[in-house]
Each structure stands twice: as C-alpha cells, then as structure tokens.
C-alpha cells in the first residue's frame, strides 16, 4: 500500500459503501484511459482542484448533441485522457434493461471507450464516460446498430425521463412510461438537433410523490393525479388499525387539508374529498386501503430549473387537469405551443421559467391559449401593479 501511486484515492476503497475507486481501478486494468483518469484524479485530490479543461465538440454526424467534450489540462502527465469525452446514451424509459442489452452497451464501450460509465446521469442518460474524438462516430454507429441512440445535450430537448409508474406502482394515475417514450420518440429531432434558446427538460411522474423530481428538475413536468373520491376499502382500513397503525395520528393529523376523520368508535374513516388536495400522504401510509380516484389524468407544470442565472425555480401549475390517453394529442400540441413561444421569445440561455418570469404569465397564457385559473397561484398578487389589456379599456379618447 505504501508505494501506491494513488495513496489518497486508496483511502476511498475502504468502508462499506461501494467504491468508485475500485471501479476505476477495475477498468484501469484493461484501459489506459481509465488508468490515467485514476492518476489525474489522484492529482486533483492532492491539488484540491479539477484538471479538466473546458470542452466543446461537435456531436456525431447529423447530431448537435449527445456528446460532452472534455480535455485534460495536463495531457503531458496523462496523455490517455488528453481527450476524454462522454457520450450520453438515451436510457430505456424507466431504466428497465434486459441483461443482453446492458451487455451490448458494455461491449461497445469496452471497444470504444474507457470502460467506465455512469448508470445513470442525473438527467437519466446512460453515460459512457471518456473516449477520444476519433471514437465518437464509430461508437455511435455501433450503438445505433445495437438499438441505442444518443440523448440530449446543449440547447436541445434533454432526454425525457419517467418514474417507474404503472410498471410497478399502484399509484400510477397516468402511463408515465408510455408518455415519456412517446415524447422521446416524437421529439427525436429536438433532442439531436439543438435549435432552442437553451436546454429544455421534460419529466413524467405518475403521481404527486414525484419519484423523478419532475417538479424540481424539468421545464415541463407531467404529474399524475385524479378527480373524484379516493377509493376507500373500509375493511382494509380497519385491518391497518388492527395491525396497530395510529390512523388519527399518522394519517388524519398529517393530512395537509385536515379533510379526514377517523372515528375510533365506528372504526371508519371519512374523507371529505372536496377538500383533499391529493397530496398522496394517506395513500402512502395505507396503500392497501386507499387508492386514487377513478377519473385520472395529469397536472401540467412548467418552469422548473436549477439556480443559474436568476435562482432556482420549482415548476408552476399551468393545467390543473388533463386527461392523458394515447396518442396524447392535447398534451403534445400544448408542448409544441409552449416550445414555439419560448423559441420565439426566449433569449439565448434563457430557460422557459425565466422567460415567463420576464414577460409575465399573462403573456404566456395568452400565447399558448390557456385560461387563468386559481390553481395556478399560491395566492393572487399582492402588489397593485396590474396591467390591463387594451381591449379591456374604455376606448373613449382621453383628452
């Protein structure tokens, strides 16, 4: 151990959590690039600073995205990572794999790249971590052959993602996987040929638990919900109570709208559904007893993003409820109108949320043809700086 060339990183092989250092070392056994990555990383650990230069690169032929260029700032020391680009491979929706497909990915990456990956990137892509410029096109060709395609990067639609939804979740109010997959397939051009002012992200969660963080991490969030009454199975409610669940304390008292009443005497649960805001809490605690209502659809929200430039935004409700059934025409039409308005009015590097903020929600709503509804706001405005449309004003000439 004492004569290791990576004494600092070696420390991170210890401990119970799986070690990324072990992964790099494993790849380094076969791949010089991985070995130089390890060495350069050790230098970063010593220097407490990154050693990558600003990237910048073309995509593969015909594409403008899917590749992140990266170059070492010490190619003298680490020639095998002089160029170390990543390829973003669009993951299969829901991150489902059969091993044969995964093995194909591995084989391709052993052939063309460093043998290192991220499963997955935080937008959802399968990240193939580190290759040279020459290998980009051949690697893409092999990927395409194997049935894979690249995801988004740059001023493009980014790889959409979806929660596991109806595949394995009892709460799915929409088919998150199908919606995501259809969007991905329909919007291929937007993913691969960046023509937008900036990035655009779409995420689909099939209920308000939001297991893909759609509300926080996408410009357009599609989130399953329902109308009507929560389906209650009174016998199962009692079964939970019998099993020791404190229904008043753990369910009713934590209901944000306080619309539930548990009567210990009758052992019945009453839900005033008109007050329920479908937060999911009671269903989460008693999945066997409570199920979403029968009329299902999605709320559509826009504007979520990380802080750069004007501060983080959580997405905003713009459509409280939309039925979502294939071919999702209403949804895709709306997305098209939204993107078109953003494309026309957005400045370079201006996300949708920032644009709406700059021009005003009323302009956005008018342009995309949505009515103003109270569900769009936490509360109405507090400042009196109200604009009126010219047509709302009494036209008589003011002298």
């Amino acid at each position, binding site marked *: 151990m004492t004569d290791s060339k990576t004494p*600092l990183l070696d*420390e991170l092989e210890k*401990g*119970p*959590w*799986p070690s990324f*250092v*072990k992964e790099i070392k*494993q790849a380094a056994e076969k791949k010089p690039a991985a070995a130089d*990555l390890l060495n350069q990383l050790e230098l*970063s650990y010593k220097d*407490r600073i*990154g050693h*990558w*230069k*600003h990237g910048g690169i073309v995509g593969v032929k*015909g594409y403008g995205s899917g590749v*992140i260029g*990266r170059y070492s700032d010490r190619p003298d020391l680490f020639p095998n990572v002089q160029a170390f680009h990543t390829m973003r491979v669009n993951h*299969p929706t*829901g*991150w*489902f*794999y*059969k*091993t044969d497909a995964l*093995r194909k*990915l*591995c084989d391709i*990456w052993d052939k063309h790249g460093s*043998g*290192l*990956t991220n*499963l997955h990137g*935080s937008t*959802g892509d399968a990240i193939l*971590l580190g290759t040279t410029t020459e290998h980009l096109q051949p690697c893409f060709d092999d*990927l*395409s052959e194997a049935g*894979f395609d690249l995801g988004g990067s740059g001023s493009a639609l980014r790889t959409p993602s979806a929660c*596991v939804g109806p595949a*394995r979740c*009892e709460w799915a109010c929409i088919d998150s996987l199908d919606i995501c997959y259809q969007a991905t397939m329909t919007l*291929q051009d937007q993913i691969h040929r960046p023509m937008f002012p900036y990035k655009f992200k779409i995420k689909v969660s099939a209920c*308000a638990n939001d297991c893909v963080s759609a509300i*926080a991490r996408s410009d357009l969030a599609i989130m399953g919900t329902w109308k009507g009454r929560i389906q209650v199975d009174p016998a199962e409610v009692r079964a939970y109570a019998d099993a020791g669940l404190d229904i008043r304390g*753990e369910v009713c008292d*934590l*209901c*944000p709208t306080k619309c539930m009443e548990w009567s210990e005497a009758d052992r019945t649960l009453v839900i005033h559904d008109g007050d329920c805001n479908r*937060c*999911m809490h009671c269903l989460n605690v008693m999945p*066997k007893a409570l199920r979403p209502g029968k009329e299902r659809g999605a709320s559509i929200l826009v504007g979520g993003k*990380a*802080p*750069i430039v004007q*501060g*983080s935004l*959580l997405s905003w409700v713009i459509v409280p409820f939309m039925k979502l059934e294939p071919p999702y025409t209403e949804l895709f039409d709306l997305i098209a109108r939204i993107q078109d308005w953003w494309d026309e009015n957005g400045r370079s*590097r201006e996300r949708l949320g920032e644009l709406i903020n700059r021009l005003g929600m009323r302009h956005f709503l008018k342009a995309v043809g949505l009515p103003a509804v109270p569900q769009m706001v936490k509360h109405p405005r507090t400042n009196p700086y109200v604009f009126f449309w010219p047509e709302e004003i009494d036209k008589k000439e003011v002298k």
Partner: protein
Amino acid sequence: MAKTDIGPPDYKQFLPPIIRDNYGKWRYHEIVRPGVLKHVGENGDVLYTVRVASPRLLSTDHIREICDLAETYCDGFLRFTSRHNIEFLLADEHRVAPLIEELQAKNYPVGGTGHSITNMVHTQGWVHCHTPATDASGPVKAIMDELYDHFTHMDLPAHVRISLACCLNMCGAVHCSDIAILGIHRTPPRPDNSRLPNVCELPTTVASCPTGAIRADMKNKTVQVNDEKCMYCGNCYTVCPAMPIADPDNDGISIWVGGKVSNARSAPMFSKLAIPFLPNNPPRWPEVVAAVKNIVEVYAAHARKHERLGEWIERVGWERFFTLTGIAFTDKHIDDFTLATETFRTTTQFKWG
C-alpha cells in the same frame, strides 16, 4: 451509415413478464425488509424487488457482474432507479433470499427503501467536469460510508434524500434535497486577458453574471470583474473558459437542508443554507461527513414519524434548528439576492432558540 433518430430501445421489451401482466394493475405494496419491496397485483400476482446501492460510476466489468446476478435470479430483468440504485426484479419469492445472500456476500448494500437514507444523487466532480468546486464521488463515498446503517435500516422518521452537486449549476439538483452538499467557490474569476478576446463573446459573458459584476472592456476586448459584486457562481466561466475561478484554498463545500420534492403532506420546498463553507479536505472530507452526520442525528432524535427534515424544521423553527445542531448562524444565511425580502422575518413570531 448508422441509422439516426431511432430513439432508445422500447422499454416494453425489457419488462419482465410479471410486469407486463400486471402493468397498471398493481394493488398495493409492502416493504418486506429494508431493500425488499413486495408489489401485489389485482390478480394476486406478487413481484419482489431487491434494491442495492451502486457507486453509479460503474466499470463495464462490474455491470457484467450485475448482469450475471440478474440472469441467475431474475431471468435477466433489472432496472435502475431515479437515484442510481439497482433493482433486481423477481417473480419468484424463493429466489429472493438466495439473491440477497449472494449480494451480501459480494458486499452489495441492500436497502434504500422506506424511511432510510437512499443513494445520493450526485454529479461528475473532478472525475469529468471542468467547473467543479469539489469532487463528487469522493464526498459521496465518504458520507455514505458513515451513514451506511441508515441505508440498510429504515430507522429514520421519514425518507432522507441527500444529494451533491459540485458547482452552482447544480446538476445534482440539490436545490430540493433534505440534505444538499454543494461545491462552492469563494473567490472571483480571474479573466485571462490574453486568451479572453479569442475565446469569449463579450456580450454573452457580461450577460451571464447574475449580479451584474462583469463589465465589458471594449477597448481591450476583454472583461473586468467587480470583485465586490461577484458571488463566485462561476456562470461566467461556463460561458467563457478564459475566466478560471477554481481556487484550491478557498473552494469547498456548503451544506443545505430541508428541501423536498414530493407533494406528500407539505408542498415541495427548496433546500436552505445550513453551513456556508467547509473546506475541501480530500480524500475523506471529514468536516463535511461530520456535519452531515450531525444533522441526520439531530433530526432523527427530534422529528416525528413521517416528518421530513424540512417539515420538522418548519414545525420547530429555524432558530431551534440552529440551536439543536449547534450550527452557527451568520450573515451569510440571510439572503441578499433578488427575492431576499421574501425570506426576512416579517412577524414577531419567533422563538428564542
């Protein structure tokens, strides 16, 4: 020539038969033990899911090992989660225990379900990005080593979601996490006047600055930074490589708490600043690890069941949070960006500590 625009493989071909049969028809689930979910279909079918931790940065050989496991126990079906864990999908209850046995033998942590600490969403750091103020994988490893038992045990009041982003771009989307680890710079960028005129567009560079700290110097085709107005976000560097900002002695980590994404009980919330700065101290970032652990422990000791970290703080108050954790409150905790006034206390309703 290779076909373009084929899109990802159709996920349906990767769904195990039991999922195809029960697609959209699941009735309920139970967490059988930490890391093991049991989903029951309307028709009585039962699907088991075994969730294991992943370092996310995976070698192809390791992936092949995972494939071996999936083939042995799951007919080759597996998935990854939105937080980078691996999920083995089993239709056959009898293979669950053997799978877990082999996983444990191979040191795969089984857990991350329910009221636990699951995998950390994180980013590239010094492994691949050009703007990081800290590493990503290293701090994650160090923190999760320490919090390991909370991954394998569901012993917390509620879910705790920890994320890390190595710079203010926040690819780790730490802005809504129970606990967020965020790399930060603390010194202004240093425009390289020789390179800048060639590699950067002045208007874009000027516009990139959230605080208006950058002025174009038209004569010299470069820019000047007003150090007093710069809060080191690094956005100018993203746009203009000739404005390096990394600084080994002053880069480091800030810690944020109380964010959430789900709409369960309370609405989604942003994370709020807890600790403005901790040093980059590789390889194991002891100060950061200790700080995170302290927050988790204080939370675990005081929160009520089902209460997310942010919900607990909202209930007891931020003044109490700082008292209980012993974290110092400073002027840096007080916002001074565009929506600052919204965060100032406009009521005499507060506690003494």
